[in-house]
C-alpha cells in the first residue's frame, strides 16, 4: 500500500509540474540530409538553442515523401512532432481544414509577416482564409540548370543557350567522355526536369492556363507534344547509372566535372558550396529559359501541429518567430543556397548565382508559381509516375504519354 501512495505522489508531482512554465523539447521533422542541407538546418538548431530554455530535437528523415508521410502518420496517430517541413502548396491542406495546426495569426500580425514576406505567392501558401498556418522559410526555384565549365571546355564547346542548343552540343560532350545530361532516376527528379522544360517551352501564361485552369486545349495541343518530344531527346544523353541515383549524387557528377549539365532546383547550389567550387569559374548556373529567366516559387515551409502541452506551444511560437527573423533568414539561406522570403535581409554574403536569382525575383512577371499550389500530391504523384515511365520506357509513344497526361489532368481534383 505504501508503494501505491508513493507512486501516486510521484504522479501528482509530475502532473503538477506541467502547469509551471518550463523549457520544452521541440521535435522537428525535416528531410534535409545532404551536406549543404545539413549545414543549413544546423543554423536553425543552433539559433533556437541559443535563445535559451527550449531545445531543438532533430528528426531528419531522408526523402521528402518519407518525411511527410511520417509527419502525417504521427499527427493522425495523436503523437505530433513540434514542427514539420513541407513544400508550400496543397500538401497540408487537409491538416488546415481538419484543425490540426497551430494558428500563427497573432504572431504574424505582431511581426507584420504579410508585408515583409515577398512575393505574395509565397505568403499565399501559408495565409489561408485570413489565418497563418505555417512559416515560409525560403524560396527555391526549380528553373535552373547547373553546368560544369571545365566539362564544356574539355569538349571544346560553349555553354548552351537553349535546350535545342544543348542537344546540338551534347554529342561533342559525349565524344569527350562526359555524360552530357546528368539526371537521377527518381520519379520526382525526372518530373521536375520535365516541368522546367515544360515551363520554358510553353511560357508562363500557357503553363498557368494548363496547370491551374486545366485548359485541355493546351494539354492536347501541339505545344505539349513538342515538350514530350524534346524531353525524349534528352534521354539519349543520360548515362546508365542514372537509375535510382539521388539528386545530390547526380549533382556531384557536375561538381567533379564528369557530367555537362543537370536540371535541378537551386538547392543544388549548396553542394557546390560545400565542395568549395566557385560560380563562373568551376560551374555555371543557368536560369532557365536562358533568354528570359524565370524563378519558380517552390521552397519549404514549417508547420506546427497543435500540441496539448502549453510549454511546447510557447516554444513552437518562439521557433516560428526565429525562423522568419531577418538575421536567421540571412544565415540560413546563405547556407542553404535558397532565397530569403523577405527583402530586408543582409545578403551581401550571397554568391553570384543567388544574386542572379534575387534580381530575377524582383519582377513579378518572372515568377512561375510552383505547380504544387495547383495540383494535389495525388495528381503530382500520378504525373511523376507517368513522366518516369515515359522517360525509362522507350516503347511508350509520345502520343500515348500525352493522352495519359490529359487523363490525369482531367481527373485532377
Amino acid at each position, binding site marked *: 500500500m505504501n508503494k501505491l501512495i508513493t507512486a501516486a505522489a510521484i504522479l501528482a508531482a509530475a502532473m503538477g509540474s506541467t502547469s509551471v512554465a518550463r523549457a520544452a523539447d521541440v521535435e522537428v521533422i525535416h528531410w534535409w540530409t545532404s551536406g549543404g542541407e545539413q549545414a543549413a538546418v544546423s543554423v536553425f538548431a543552433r539559433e533556437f538553442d541559443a535563445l535559451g530554455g527550449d531545445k531543438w530535437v532533430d528528426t531528419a528523415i531522408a526523402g521528402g*515523401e*518519407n518525411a*511527410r*508521410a511520417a509527419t*502525417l*502518420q504521427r499527427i*493522425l496517430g495523436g503523437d505530433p512532432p513540434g514542427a514539420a517541413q513541407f513544400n508550400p502548396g496543397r*500538401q497540408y491542406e*487537409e*491538416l488546415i481544414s*481538419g484543425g490540426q495546426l497551430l494558428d500563427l495569426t497573432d504572431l504574424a500580425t505582431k511581426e507584420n509577416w504579410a508585408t515583409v514576406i515577398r512575393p505574395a505567392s509565397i505568403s499565399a501558401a501559408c495565409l489561408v482564409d485570413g489565418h497563418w498556418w505555417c512559416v515560409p522559410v525560403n524560396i527555391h526555384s526549380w528553373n535552373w540548370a547547373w553546368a560544369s565549365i571545365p566539362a564544356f571546355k574539355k569538349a571544346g564547346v560553349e555553354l548552351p543557350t537553349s535546350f535545342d542548343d544543348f542537344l546540338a552540343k551534347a554529342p561533342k560532350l559525349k565524344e569527350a567522355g562526359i555524360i552530357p545530361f546528368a539526371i537521377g*532516376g*527518381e*520519379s520526382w527528379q525526372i518530373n521536375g526536369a520535365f516541368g522546367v522544360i515544360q515551363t520554358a517551352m510553353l511560357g508562363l501564361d500557357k503553363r498557368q492556363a494548363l496547370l491551374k485552369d486545366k485548359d485541355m486545349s493546351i494539354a492536347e495541343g501541339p505545344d505539349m507534344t513538342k515538350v514530350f518530344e524534346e524531353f525524349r531527346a534528352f534521354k539519349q544523353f543520360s548515362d*546508365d*547509372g*542514372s*537509375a*535510382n541515383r539521388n539528386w545530390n549524387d547526380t549533382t556531384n557528377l557536375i561538381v567533379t566535372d564528369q557530367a555537362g549539365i543537370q536540371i535541378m532546383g537551386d538547392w543544388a547550389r549548396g553542394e557546390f558550396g560545400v565542395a568549395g567550387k566557385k560560380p563562373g569559374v568551376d560551374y555555371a548556373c543557368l536560369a532557365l529559359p536562358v533568354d528570359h529567366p524565370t524563378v519558380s516559387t517552390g521552397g519549404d515551409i514549417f508547420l506546427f501541429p497543435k500540441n496539448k502541452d502549453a510549454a511546447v506551444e510557447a516554444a513552437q511560437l518562439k521557433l516560428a518567430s526565429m525562423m522568419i527573423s531577418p538575421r536567421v533568414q540571412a544565415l540560413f539561406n546563405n547556407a542553404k543556397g535558397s532565397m530569403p522570403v523577405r527583402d530586408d535581409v543582409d545578403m551581401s554574403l550571397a554568391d553570384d548565382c543567388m544574386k542572379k536569382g534575387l534580381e530575377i525575383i524582383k519582377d513579378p512577371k518572372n515568377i512561375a508559381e510552383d505547380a504544387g499550389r495547383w495540383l*494535389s*500530391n*495525388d495528381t503530382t*504523384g*500520378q504525373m511523376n*509516375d*507517368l513522366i*518516369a*515511365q*515515359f*522517360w*525509362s*520506357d522507350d516503347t511508350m509513344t509520345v502520343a500515348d504519354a500525352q493522352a*495519359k497526361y490529359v487523363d490525369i489532368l482531367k*481527373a485532377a481534383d
Partner: protein
Amino acid sequence: MAQVAPVEDNLGTRSGTAAKAIGPARTRRKFNYQSVIGTTPMILAAVGVFVICIIFSIIWSFTNSKLFPNFNFIGMAQYQRLWSTDRWLISVNNIWFFGIMSMIFNMGFGYLLAVFMDQRIRQEDLFRSIILYPFAMSLVVTGLVWQWMMDPNLGIQAAVRQWGWTSFQFAPLVKNETAIYGILIGGIWNGVGVTMAIMLAGLRGVDGEIWKAAKIDGIPTWRTYLFIVLPMMRGAIATAFILQCTGVVRVFDIVVAMTQGGPGISTQMPAIYVIQHITDRVNVGQGMAAATMMLMPVMILIALQYFLQWRAARKRSKAI
C-alpha cells in the same frame, strides 16, 4: 493436468467431425479458465487487427477518403481508377512474375541444396550456416548490397571490366526489361537458405528403412530422392511453400532498397502502391482499393483450403 488440456483440445477440434460421427462418447469436461485467459489476447488481436481493420479497409475503398477517412461513398470509382492505372497493372504483373519465379527457384534450389547437404558432407554445419545466413539479414541490407553489386559504375560490371573484359555487361537494374530479374536474384539469395533448412529437416525425417528398401530394390539414388522421398516430405514442402507465399505477397523492402520501383515504374509492387497512396499521396480511398485487391488472392486461397477440408471431412464421415 492443465498443461495437457490444450493439446487434447487441439486434437479434439481437428478430428471434430469424425468424433461427432462416432457418437457422444466423451464426458463433459470442466471449463478450462486457464486456456481461455491464455488465448484471449490472441483472439482480441485477431479480431481487432485482422477482422475489424480489414472490414474498414474494404469500406473505405468505396469512399473518396483523402487524408482523413470519411464515408462519402463513390461506388466503384476507386477500383475503376486502379485498374486503368499503368502503374498498378505493372505492379500486378510484377508480383505474379516475381512470385512464381521466386517460388520455382527457391523451392528447386532449396531442395537441391538440401539433397547436397544430405550427402553427409564434411563441415555440414558450416555450409548450412553460410547458406542460411542471408535469411537472417534484413531485406533492406540485402537489397542495398545487391544494388551496389549491380551498379554499372561500381559493381560487378565495373570490376570485371577493370580486369580486362571491357564488353562485359551485368547491370540488370538499369534497364526496364531486366530490372525485375535483378530483384529476383536478391530475393532468391535471401530466401533459398530457409527453404533448404526446412527441406533438409524433411529429408532427415524420412525413415532410414525406406532408403535401405530402395537400395535393395536397386533404385538409383536420384530416383529415390525424386519419386520416393520427395512425396514423403509433403509437410516440409507445404511449410516452405507457405513461407514463400507470405514473403511474396508482402514484398516491399527489397524493391524499395534496390530500385524504388524504377527504372521508371518498371519494378513497382502492389504493397508500394498501397503505402504510397495512404501516406504521401494522401489518397486513402485509392490505397484501400489497392489493399483490398491484394487481399483477394489470399481470400480465394483460404476459401479453397476450407472447401478442400470440408470435402475431405465429408468423404471421411461417409466412409465411416
